[in-house]
């Protein structure tokens, strides 16, 4: 069977809407919550199948263009959100994740900037898949911290203490930051093999470093000021904005014409 993107998006988003309805139905029936998990999980399976199909038709890993990374991201964010939901019983978390992923999927419907089958020689490396996948998992984890930040502002307004929320966000920052360290280092080792230097201050590299350093500063800030909860929320938002700039925004900067990473 050949899955078409718009069909996949329709099915996936519908499943997520169904899941959200099941979560929030004013009923105490436990099986509704189980249904919600099944719907959410099925949507992720659909996306995985679509990625596998894309890999086979393109005859290369679908990780090259922005559209392709958005697709992977839209699969990983709800997956991580679902795992966190199952571990911590935070129902809202999975919904936020799916909402974020839906935005990315719909962006892909409007701008399907993928499907180009060529892979230029520099990308034909065994580093390609681990570098991109690790980065996407890291981005998905760090995106989850944004969901905590948004939730945090809401709870702060209600006058609730954010201690436990921020501890959970910190766990995700630690995991995401560590994986981003792997991503950036794998990128450096790959660059040495492909271009002769492990670091060339390419705008994409520079922005990856900026967001990495910003999360690093966040970790130190939280360690030093565990009680500055409101500032920590803002810190998370800024970190995520810098991360998005590094991922999607570099192409629109004056420095972009010097980037070897434009795709």
């Amino acid at each position, binding site marked *: 069977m050949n899955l078409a993107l718009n069909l996949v998006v329709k099915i996936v988003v519908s499943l997520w809407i169904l899941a959200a309805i099941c979560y929030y139905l004013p009923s105490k029936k436990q099986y509704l919550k189980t249904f919600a998990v099944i719907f959410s999980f099925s949507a992720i399976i659909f996306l995985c199948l679509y990625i596998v199909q894309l890999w086979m038709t393109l005859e290369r890993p679908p990780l090259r263009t922005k559209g392709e990374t958005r697709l992977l991201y839209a699969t990983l964010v709800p997956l991580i959100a679902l795992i966190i939901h199952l571990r911590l019983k935070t129902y809202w978390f999975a919904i936020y994740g799916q909402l974020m992923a839906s935005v990315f999927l719909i962006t892909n419907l409007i701008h399907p900037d993928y499907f180009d089958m060529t892979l230029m020689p520099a990308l034909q490396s065994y580093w390609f898949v681990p570098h991109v996948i690790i980065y996407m998992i890291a981005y998905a984890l760090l995106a989850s911290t944004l969901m905590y930040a948004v939730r945090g502002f809401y709870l702060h307004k209600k006058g609730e203490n954010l201690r436990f929320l921020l501890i959970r966000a910190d766990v995700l920052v*630690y995991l995401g930051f560590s994986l981003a360290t792997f991503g950036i280092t794998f990128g450096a080792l790959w660059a040495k093999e492909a271009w002769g230097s492990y670091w060339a*201050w390419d705008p994409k590299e520079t922005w990856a470093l900026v967001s990495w350093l910003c999360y690093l500063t966040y970790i130190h800030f939280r360690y030093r000021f565990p009680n500055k909860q409101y500032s920590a929320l803002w810190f998370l938002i800024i970190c995520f904005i810098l991360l998005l700039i590094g991922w999607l925004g570099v192409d629109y900067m004056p*420095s972009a014409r010097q980037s070897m990473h434009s795709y």
Partner: protein
Amino acid sequence: MPFGYAPTFILIIGFVLVGFALEIATGSNGFPKPIAPLNLSLIVIYFLILISLNFVKSFRKYINWLSSITMAVSSAIVYIILIAIAGFLPQGGGDNLLQKIGFTHMISSWPYVFSLLFVCTALFYTILKKLMRFKVKYIGFLLRHIGFFIILFFGSLSVGNIEKYNIELFIDSPTHQGFYFDKLRANEIPEFPDQKLIKRNVSLPFSLEMKRFEIDNYPSEILFYDSLGFPVKTKLKKEAGFVGIDKTFNFKDWEITVKKYLESATPRKDDFIPYEIDCDHPAFLSAAYLKAKNVRTKEEKEGWVTCGNVRSNTPDITRMLMRLQYYFPATYLDIGEYSVTIGQPGKKRFASFITMQNEEGKKIEKIVEVNKPFKYKSWYLYQTNCHFRLLAPKSNEPLRVSTLQAVRDPWLKVVYIGFFMLLAGSIHLIWSVRKFPKGQKK
């Protein structure tokens, strides 16, 4: 601790401002590249000063401040701002105010060096403090911090020692000459007005001879254009963008079938015949014979289409000469208000088959291709580029040029140790997450 956040920030920003002033005062040349033995002496002096200060009792409170999180956060934020500027503005040129204060060569500018020095010093004293009260549980912390320190400090100081030379190879023509582009020195006469860079040759400790060059390409992709000549995006590429014999593409009301496909072709009267040449050769042309049928009106059209052969990866002047000699335009098949053609194929792989002869006269045969460098002693040889060149008017055939890059970085192993320490520390960080308080289940 002598200073809180505000004074720490003010102090670092003060140094950065001094850096900007130094940039203007030194004619915007940036921090001089630390070349050996200068960088070695700088490292020794830096470590000696920092370690001896550690034993000066009256300086202890300043060391506590330098190794504090206050310093770590403040210096990191200033550092982040400076590199964000480097990531935002194009680097390496310009002749305006931004260039005068170092914004266009941020990574080698004085303010950057000052801010880096603060980050490194903070890291150094943090590491020293932990080492002096070493406990096994500090291992992860130390791996991360030492790893990052090594990468930042030694990576930055090694810049002046990295040797990077381009080598142009022609078939069966051995050479031991590399070249690089350098800034024009004050006593040198420019060859043309506004010349900033000059090509300098170097003799390499080995000679290279290219025996053969191979280049593979992807097939062409089917392309559609509207009546104004703008490309029409289709969803066709998803299933199969590549042109192949007997492949059918559906576009609007049209069904387009590829009857013949010549990946490398040459025109012969109204026809095309196969012509085996490399895909980056100026005469390279892909051609396809397409048959289009309108499923609604049953209208039929057929004919040859080609991608044309104006390539963009050769230098301008050469391209101009080549165009005159080889120029063949792209051709289209009109289908109603649209037209269809095939695109220029992309490069898939290119490789130089080289023979290296070292100083002892020993010959080594190797294939160098992108992502597969050839390592010889401390040198790495990379395949960086390839093109055709018309060297002299009397040469009828364009000359195949393969560009390799020879790179030697004596500090590479040191920096790699830093990378692996940082990775080991990150694994520890992932592991440490289990110690976090579980929190309320809600």
